[in-house]
């Protein structure tokens, strides 16, 4: 049984590299990524799982790093925005102007990247369901939606509802 009973060393697999950090058992992954590893792409927004600005990818799936203990992440493959290079989602966001202030962008990008990998032929219903995990206070939803649509090969007609 693995355990962490007090502040101590953790080994995390981040962006394909083994990283050693010092963390309390009660520290969130978001806190450790930002303060221990300097990976500030994942943003603290609500820190309550509502806004999605802290979204990263863990074992291929988007997760909110403010809702995961760093200790819980040991043994999982973590990808942050800093580990995303020249992905179709990034290019699509540039081409479609899928951002304004940029604070939510890394979270949206991680969701869009994971969606394109897991469901490259996502239905509009699936696409909207995934995008509703994130909030953009600049309301760039149209452009973000256009960006993800440009890299998906959708198989159904567009419904009326927007993210």
């Amino acid at each position: 049984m693995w355990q962490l009973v007090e502040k101590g060393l953790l080994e995390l697999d981040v962006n394909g590299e083994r990283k050693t950090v010092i963390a309390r058992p009660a520290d969130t992954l978001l806190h450790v990524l930002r303060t221990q590893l300097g990976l500030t792409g994942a943003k603290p927004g609500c820190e309550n799982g509502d806004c999605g600005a802290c979204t990263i990818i863990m074992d291929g799936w988007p997760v909110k790093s403010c809702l995961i203990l760093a200790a819980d992440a040991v043994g999982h493959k973590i990808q942050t925005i800093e580990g995303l290079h020249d992905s179709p989602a990034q290019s699509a966001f540039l081409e479609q102007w899928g951002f304004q202030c940029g604070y939510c962008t890394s979270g949206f990008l991680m969701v869009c990247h994971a969606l394109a990998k897991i469901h490259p032929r996502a239905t509009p219903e699936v696409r909207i369901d995934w995008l509703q995990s994130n909030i953009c206070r600049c309301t760039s939803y149209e452009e973000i939606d256009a960006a993800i649509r440009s890299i998906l090969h959708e198989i159904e007609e567009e419904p009326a509802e927007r993210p």
Partner: protein
Amino acid sequence: MIPFDFEYYRPDSIEEAVNVFERLDNEQKQPIYLGGGSEIITLGRLNQLQTQAVIDLKRIPECKALQLEEGVLVLGAGLSLTEVAEANHFPLLTESAGRVADHTARCTITLGGNICSNLMYREAVLAFLVADSQAVIAGKQGIRRVVFSDIYNKRLHLHRGEFLVQIATDTKLLTLPHRGVKKTKDSRINYPLVSCAFLKCDGRLRLAVTGLCAFPFRMREMEDCLNDDSLAPEERIKQCLRYLPAPIVDDVEGSAPYRQFVFSNTLAEVIEQFEGRD
């Protein structure tokens, strides 16, 4: 940031989990079993939950089971709601638990965590209540299997130190006519005014509800009313409302009269959908 410290344990087996809980409990550390952890983090951050130790159950193989064999679907309590929905072996569960929080949060929230949540909604339990699924529970005395509706009265009743390992459902029930309905006040991502799971089995509609009262429930008396085709749908709905197990929730998400209206409307829709279908 969580403003207090706790110890983190990650057992590899049911026995280890039960033993470490007992030890930590004896040490007065108020141990808590951890599923996805989102509730422990959000409540802990606000000092609305206190513990000195958490026991993460997700690395126990039985808690991650996802098996469909010998006429039984076995779902580990440590599966995330997304894992369950992606496998989609139980479409009613996919529908009724498929709108808990948001998609990214559902990649973390576990079946067991939702069913044992401190929040009143616990939408994942609805499909198991109408399907008469079996809860597989581990504790110091070993493993016990209990029909869900026998152990779920307002919440899952577990003895101290016990935890939900799996939920087993007869495969014959998985593909029956069904409908999961979640109605919210405004945006799609929100707590439900009413969330219902309907399953038509042996010509009768079964119904489990959450959001209406302060806990999820399945009332056989309500189902009798719902299935009494000697009465007009409006009368059946009126009769159903007589058997609510508690007052209707009246809060900022929706007043009691509004929730009752939404629930009645949902029943009318579903009666119309299922009337005459086998």
